[in-house]
């Protein structure tokens, strides 16, 4: 039997000393025990639908099985399964002890993943689920635990319904951002999604793109890969496409107040995307007169990245070059709890970073982005 019975004993408790502006974790994944957790907030009609058909992502598998099986069940750390039963991160008390208390987290941002209905083939179901998931966050996590903030889950393939959900939640300090998945059915900057960004900017909420979702297209622009290891690589490439689209479609020109946070997409790729955009924009400017600033400037002003998963160069100091190119104020600490590929806050950042930089990555930058 591989599951450890007392996992809380396996964590070495402690908060990084440099987190003097607080430790903010921008990526925690709360999980419902099952669809029944959402029932209080689903109509009869959508509850029946959920029983008969369930979530249908644009890939064909059912029951939460993904096209590429993950490395561990539910992609979770084996020590994160609560001893009282239930799936990882389904129990607030266990989350408090195993994660928030153990690492000294001052604020944790929740990014609920499947089953959330996001990206579902059925817009009506997706909208019903978004409402239910947002209510579930409030009742189960946000109201009982002041250290947690939630994300407004939206049915992003239906922009109008998404804007309505955002407007419903605007002004509620429990929510600190709008959540989308990184694989949308069309590139994220496409005008069909603009109502979402308008509503978010109006509400003063950043829009987070978290790795995953299923666009309905092959998982690479050259066809379907074979392996999970390729999918992990592909999260970075699809995020690169999203950044490109948001910039080139002029979303930030339209909405100067909009902020975008990229969560669990990696980050070391961002400078080369910015450089490539700048370079070729110079030659292709006439096609896109709506772009008034160099793409790299737009990225520098509007886009933040989270630390997890952190790329690992063969030569450690190379990562610092990249972080410097991105901007030390653009990087937000994240653990991705309870997934595997977890970074202990004390070990996550290169040891040679100066104190102020570590302080900002641990908490200062997130406080500014989210107004915490």
């Amino acid at each position, binding site marked *: *039997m*591989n599951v*450890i019975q007392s*996992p809380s*004993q*396996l*964590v*070495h408790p402690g908060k990084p000393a440099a987190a003097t502006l607080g430790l903010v974790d921008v990526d925690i994944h709360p999980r419902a025990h099952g669809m029944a957790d959402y029932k209080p907030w689903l109509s009869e009609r959508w509850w029946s639908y959920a029983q008969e058909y369930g979530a249908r992502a644009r890939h064909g598998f059912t029951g939460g099985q993904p096209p590429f099986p993950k*490395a*561990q069940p539910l992609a979770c*750390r*084996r*020590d*994160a399964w609560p001893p009282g039963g239930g799936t990882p991160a389904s129990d607030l008390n266990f989350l408090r002890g195993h994660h928030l208390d153990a690492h000294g987290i001052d604020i944790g941002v929740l990014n609920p993943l499947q089953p959330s209905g996001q990206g579902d083939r059925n817009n009506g179901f997706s909208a019903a689920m978004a409402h239910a998931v947002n209510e579930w966050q409030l009742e189960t996590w946000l109201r009982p635990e002041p250290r947690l903030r939630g994300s407004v889950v939206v049915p992003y393939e239906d922009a109008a319904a998404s804007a309505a959900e955002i407007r419903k939640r605007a002004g509620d300090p429990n929510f600190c951002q709008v959540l989308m998945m990184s694989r949308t059915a069309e590139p994220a900057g496409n005008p069909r999604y603009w109502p979402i960004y308008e509503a978010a900017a109006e509400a003063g909420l950043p829009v987070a793109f978290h790795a995953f979702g299923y666009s309905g297209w092959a998982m690479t622009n050259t066809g379907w890969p074979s392996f999970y290891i390729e999918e992990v690589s592909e999260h970075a490439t699809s995020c690169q496409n999203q950044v490109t689209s948001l910039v080139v479609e002029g979303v930030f020109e339209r909405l100067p107040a909009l902020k975008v946070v990229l969560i669990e997409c990696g980050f070391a790729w961002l400078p080369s995307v910015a450089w490539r955009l700048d370079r070729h924009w110079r030659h292709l400017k006439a096609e896109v007169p709506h772009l008034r600033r160099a793409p790299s400037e737009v990225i520098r002003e509007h886009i933040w990245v989270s630390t997890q998963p952190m790329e690992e160069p063969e030569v450690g100091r190379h990562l610092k070059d990249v972080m410097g190119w991105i901007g030390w104020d653009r990087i937000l600490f994240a653990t991705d709890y309870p997934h*595997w*590929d*977890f*970074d*202990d806050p004390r*070990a*996550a950042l290169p040891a040679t970073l100066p104190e102020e930089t570590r302080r900002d990555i641990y908490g200062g930058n997130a406080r500014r982005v989210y107004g915490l």
Partner: protein
Amino acid sequence: MVAAVGDIPPGGRKLVEVAGRRVVVFNLGGEFFALGDRCPHQGGSLAAGCVTGHVSSPAPGEYSYSRRGEMVRCPWHYWEFDIRTGRSRFDPGRVRTRRYEARVESGAALQGATALPEGPYRAETFAVRVEDNYVVVDA
């Protein structure tokens, strides 16, 4: 003294503290092995890791699966370690977790340890005592 032999059945493991160090004791078919609990990568707990077999391959599409239950993976980034030697799979020469000697002593002694691996992490040996079928690891 860390456990009764019966506490760690074949295929099982137990996390213990020995002189301030966390040590995981595994039972592989009656042979006992003990590894330091901290993954050399970022310190994840190997006691919480998945125990699995070793897969190698002579060619794409071919899977040679052996040594079921003799590899442990760190739960955080899934690095795999050979329970018998502490050596990591992807770079056995350079990365390994600390390995401790573990023995069962009860009348006839069971020598479960293999040769000490070379490299930056050197396994410590501990004297072992037996008392009524107890596994004893001394630090």
